[in-house]
């Protein structure tokens, strides 16, 4: 609850035009991209600078008002759903690229910058920012940092975490701290930069970030390999890596996904194949050509029934269509689409995919799997309908089994989507009681009043799935 007096204080800080507590204004910030979660905030605030963020935090801390920092709301773990009310902070005014430093190869940005805008701005200078989450046209850098977003290029280039060099963060008590710097080496104290990356807004509010850039790769090539059995595809993945080749992209689609994709786009994918790999390599021309040849050979050795290397950019685009259309094709099947991201060591891909198919059969639900085979990050996806309570229950049970299996295979419950509310009940499965306790100790130290995105990451009880509203 926000009292009239507190409201006046907020308005004094940000101005009336940047404080919205209308019904409609609150409603449109009551959700993110996670199915089945909705909860109204008490107000939505758009601060104009770090100082204002700090003053807002002080008031919230004093009055125990929850703060949910939000980018574009594309996350899939209900991480920005204001489940305990409070204020949602949006960064529409803090959306500038502050500096591109070509000597230190860094870019300094405010949190509201759209990821793709950043990528294009640095590419115009021949530089490269590799993290490319599927939502990059929409997502903000602030959101990417808080969720430690991955993407298709993760195998070779790593994820958001690997590119964050320095942060400016407003803590729950309003303190403004700066972590890291434009430094390749820096061992002055704890690595707080890494702590805040992926903390889902539970430890502080990121108000500025300095990101690492690398030179733009010269060329890029794309190919598609088709398989009659899953093992062969999985073996190809392992063999490619074992041959000391790290491709930029190594994407995977299973048969149920292929069938759905083909009926959606009609591009002549053989639906009788069990798996497809989309492989891309970038770098100097000679290296790319050598690697592509070697990978094509490896795929054939592992009994790929067909390997097509794109000769033109247009062909490459066509090959990518299959992978890109996966989500669209699946989302059109049923009203609700539940998209998970269980992740295993890449050597366990075949086992995991097989297990997912068995689990789907066991619970009589339709699960299609695609994802980033190269880094073991799979997207088992279930088209369902929130109105079908019985099926929804079976879907939940199936995903519980999938999480359990992923952990059993040495993996994790979430590779890139985050914990949020969605996977909080399962976090202990991965971390153990002691692991949770250690994390909670950090949380309490930095946010003793639990105002920073409360209800996220840590569940009230383990294993019981929380479903809000209908």
């Amino acid at each position, binding site marked *: 609850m926000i009292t009239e007096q507190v409201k006046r204080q907020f308005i004094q800080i940000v101005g009336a035009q940047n404080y919205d507590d209308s019904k409609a204004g609150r409603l449109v910030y009551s*959700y993110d991209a996670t199915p089945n979660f909705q909860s109204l905030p008490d107000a939505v605030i758009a601060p104009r600078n770090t100082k204002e963020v700090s003053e807002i935090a002080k008031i919230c801390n004093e009055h125990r008002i929850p703060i949910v920092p939000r980018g574009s709301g594309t996350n899939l773990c209900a991480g920005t759903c204001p489940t305990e009310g409070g204020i949602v902070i949006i960064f529409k005014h803090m959306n500038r690229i502050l500096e591109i430093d070509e000597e230190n190869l860094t870019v300094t940005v405010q949190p509201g910058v759209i990821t793709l805008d950043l990528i294009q701005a640095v590419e115009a200078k021949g530089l490269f920012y590799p993290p490319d989450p599927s939502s990059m046209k929409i997502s903000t850098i602030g959101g990417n940092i808080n969720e430690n977003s991955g993407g298709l290029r993760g195998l070779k280039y790593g994820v958001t975490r690997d590119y964050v060099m320095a942060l400016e963060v407003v803590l729950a008590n309003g303190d403004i701290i700066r972590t890291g710097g434009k430094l390749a080496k820096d061992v002055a104290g704890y690595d707080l930069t890494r702590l805040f990356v992926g903390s889902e807004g539970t430890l502080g509010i990121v108000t500025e970030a300095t990101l690492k850039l690398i030179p733009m790769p010269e060329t890029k090539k794309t190919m598609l390999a088709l398989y009659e059995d899953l093992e062969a595809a999985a073996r190809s993945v392992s063999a490619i890596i074992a041959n000391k080749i790290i491709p930029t992209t190594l994407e995977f689609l299973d048969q149920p996904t292929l069938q759905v994709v083909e009926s959606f786009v009609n591009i002549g994918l053989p639906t009788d194949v069990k798996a497809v790999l989309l492989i891309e390599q970038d770098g100097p021309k000679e290296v790319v050509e050598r690697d592509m040849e070697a990978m094509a050979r490896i795929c054939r050795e592992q009994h790929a029934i067909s390997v097509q290397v794109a000769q033109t950019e247009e062909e490459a685009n066509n090959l990518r269509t299959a992978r890109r259309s996966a989500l669209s094709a699946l*989302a059109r099947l049923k009203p609700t689409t539940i998209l998970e991201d269980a992740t295993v060591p890449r050597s366990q891909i075949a086992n995991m995919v097989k297990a997912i198919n068995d689990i789907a059969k066991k619970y009589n639900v339709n699960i299609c799997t695609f994802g980033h085979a190269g880094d073991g990050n799979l997207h088992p996806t279930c088209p369902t309908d929130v109105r079908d309570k019985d099926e929804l229950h079976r879907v939940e049970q199936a995903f519980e089994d999938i999480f359990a299996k992923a952990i059993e295979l040495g993996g994790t419950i979430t590779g890139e989507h985050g914990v949020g509310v969605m996977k909080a009940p399962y976090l202990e499965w991965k971390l153990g009681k002691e692991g949770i306790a250690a994390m909670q100790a950090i949380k309490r130290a930095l946010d003793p009043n639990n105002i920073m995105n409360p209800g996220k990451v840590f569940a009230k009880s383990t294993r019981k799935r929380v479903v809000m509203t209908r």
Partner: protein
Amino acid sequence: MKNEQLIQQQFQARMNEDELLNCMRCGFCLPTCPTYMESGFQESHSPRGRIALMKAVVDGLIEPDEDVERSLQLCLGCRACEPVCPSGVRYGHLLEEARDIIAQHKRYPWFVRLVRHVVFKQLFPHPKRMRMVTALIGVYQRSGLQTLVRKLGLLRVLPNHLAMMENVLPNVPTWKQMNERPTHIEAETKRKKRVAFFSGCLMDTMFMDINDATMKLLQLAGCDIVIPQAQTCCGALHGHSGEKADAKTLAKQNIEAFERLDVDYIVTNAGGCGAFLIEYDHLLKDDPIWAERAKSFVAKIKDVSVILVELGFHLEGWRLPEQIVTYQDSCHLRNVMKTANEPRLLLQSISGVEFREMKDADRCCGSAGIYNIIEPDMSMQVLDYKMAQVKQTKATTIVTANPGCLLQMKLGIEREGLTNVRAVHLVELLLEAVEATKEANEPMKQTG
């Protein structure tokens, strides 16, 4: 208050729940939405936000208050969110239904009611009245009255954008010209197709030249053309403004006018009309007598550019004096009729034309039916962005495929003071190319 309850009940009864649930809130629509971008990333002015608001009204989470209504009214209805939607949500249908419910229960101020009544009921559905009004504009333009009004600065009483709009209106045809329209035209070359032409209400009056150019091109491409007299306004203006019942009446009249003609296609040359015609099956889906008839009508609707390409018009080596040309998509032609390649193909085929794609050519220009009149601020903001992209291309000819877009581009040129830039309809430029090519070939024939 009572009104809000009524609206809420209607939302619950009439909004398509499946379609609302299909939105998975992924946000892929956000960067394509002009009002989201121009409002500084305000979620309530995005498709995702608007769908969430409609659903919340249905779910009883909120009342359909002024803010909800504002959010729905500020939508351009360009439907750029639809092609990018992974779930294939038909946002346009949701918006139309919601606006219809609100309009039916809303107590507009008396002058708005008067304007709506005159426009929707007394003017557009009546071709003869459309001709009369256009003829009056013609008298104004030709009698010297326009010159006088401009000299005296009388237009200053109008809001700036309206005054400028007066300035960019085309020179309209005379009463006599409008009343002597053809009903049947034969192909000029070997007959390849028999088509019916949807002449439209504004297109056959204020933009008569464009209709003439369209028919001329079809003739050249080998079409016999029938122009049924019983046709009327497509009803798009009504449908988009919450007057669905009137739209249905007009739809039935049009279906009746065209269905017995033995033609391969029904040709349109205005993206806005074409898109509404092509969705008559949706408009009449609950009407047992008309649903099937609407389906066969819809199957024949094609934009003129598609037919020209199908008949190989772009392979005939047309020429124009050298110029840089850019193309502004008609949102409804692109997003609803799914026609985007053909106009570009036609332009690129003309030698002398250097075609330069502008950034975000697929983003709305802010015309959006009568949007530029009722929402001038947002419309002009959207237009300013558009003109900045046009200027980047250094184009001297802006080509469009819809009358609203054409006027808006002319308005943009006027606002920016770009004296060496013109805006034309695609068929106007194509006809220009035909004439230029013929002229260039004449002397050759004589000497040869």
